[in-house]
């Protein structure tokens, strides 16, 4: 399984109410205030269920998840290492 951009965008729109037509891969989601940090745990659950592996929680920081590009990089880096 892999986390795709489409699924991530759908999640951002559906669960966080973000208008995804306005954001690109580099738009800061949490530190800009577009997404609130409260929803981060839900985001982690979503990523884990889509990517099909557990994240090491002591490894996850806001910086890792602050944009669409960073989330995909973060997940793919770990996915490559674990299930390639």
């Amino acid at each position: 399984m892999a986390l795709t951009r489409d699924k991530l965008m759908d999640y951002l729109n559906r669960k966080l109410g973000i208008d995804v037509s306005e954001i690109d891969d580099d738009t800061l989601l949490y530190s800009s205030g577009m997404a609130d940090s409260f929803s981060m745990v839900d985001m982690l659950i979503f990523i884990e269920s889509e990517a099909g592996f557990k994240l090491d929680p002591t490894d996850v920081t806001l910086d890792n998840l602050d944009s669409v590009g960073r989330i995909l990089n973060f997940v793919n880096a770990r996915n490559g290492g674990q299930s390639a």
Partner: protein
Amino acid sequence: MRREGRLVPLLHEHARRQPARTAVTQRLPGGRYLETSYAELARKVNLFSGLFRRRLRPGAIIPIYMGKSADCIAAIYGALESGHVFSCLNPKFRGPQISAVLQASNADAALVDGPGLMTLRNSLSDPACEAVRQPEWLLLQGDPPVPLFEKATRELSGSLKIRHFNEPPAEEPSTAADDRHEDAHLPACCLFTSGSTGTPKGVLISRRDLENRTWAEVEWFELGSEDVLLSILPFSFDVGLNQLMTALAIGCELVLADSWLPADILDTAAARRVSGISGVPSIWQDMLRVQARFDTAGKHKSLRYITVSGGSLPSRQLLELPGLAPGVAIFKTYGQTEAFRAASLRPSEFSTKSESVGRAFTGVRLYVVNESGRPCAPGEIGEIVHSGLGVMTGYLQSADTALKLRPNPFFSAADSHPLAVFTGDYGCIDDDGYLFLRGRHDTMLKISGNRVYPEEITRQLLAIPGVAMAEVVGVRDDSGESHLAAFASLAKGAALSEAEIQRSLAARLPSYMAPRRVLLLEEMPRTASGKPDKQELLALARRSVNL
């Protein structure tokens, strides 16, 4: 060290005595930190108070709808200085809550930042959010400006009254840094909290109480100017606000961080040598779950205390808590927006009374009363009544006040406060005077420290075109945390999916109020008397939220 005094003059005094000392540090992306000195913060406070004096009617409520920053703090103190009433709104509020706040406060002007403006834009098409057009929005743009927010500002300039907050030219007279003449009984602050009527309620706090509760906390946590406090709670929450007030009263450093991720908290605490953290149970639960731990012998050796505020932890986790931060003092606190910090458990009492929320806080009288209003015997469960420090002056909409704030039934020479808050919380006091909480008799839930009435969510569900009937229930998991499940049945001919309803709710509600599941039902289950069958709904909810 002074342990008393008015909050704004003290801030200016710190600015004179220790101008270069860092007052506020903000954690930025990439692990960078932006520091604001006491001198710079005091200068900004003067700018805001001058602006408020020039543009607003005396005593007006100033909604502040923005994330935590040095500017946000300067606006709060500016309002205190100019004699206005600041109202920090939860940054998670959406259009319907903002509209309700603006209507209730009758605000002519409000402060907003880029993200806030984006939210306002999304609510413009909703007729129920008409009130967002009412005030003049003073926009504080970040530095450097974010293109996305600039675009939103341009698009909105035709529909909303937006004024860029620019620093006035230097020749403009600065305002006197003295609020001595202000009446201590006038409101200083209005905090909006979830209400059973389905809309947020404004809780008014007097200038004197804001000041006294600050000094009471300074004393309890033994704060000094060498402390560095980590602010992870919003200023719209009384615990987060009081932490801000104590930091600036004592002249120490406050570190602003928005992330609740364990790795970020550990990192920030080490990088800034944090000594105290005020937290809600879910923050510590997350850390315990992932087996995060403060290295109190090494990089976290500055950490002196943590608090468990705004809710309780189950017994098992209470026992694990000392292992999270070995040697660190743990304060448990209990209170409400309407009755700030009724009780607190001191660290030395944690080993013997960890299940208790402690004894009455400084200046507070606590009672437990039975249904006929008589004091309960030790161990007998009744409603918790609070008089003294921390009691609100009333709700903004006065009709609700009479139920919550009543003549103090224990008014006497020993308790000379004429009014007491009937908290709606149930509990008992043991033989040693320690308070134990035992739930509520209404529908209020605590979700990650936020108070939530399911009625607020039901109201927004019913506002979605096509939804005919709606109910919301909360289900508690093993760790004591509540999760929301929403049920909706559709109007004839309406075609809405569960995902579409979730999307609509995400735009209308703060994220902590967003139900974990939305379930469409052909028909609402009813009891024999025709009321929604809550037991049946709870059973459905338990099966559907996968606890």
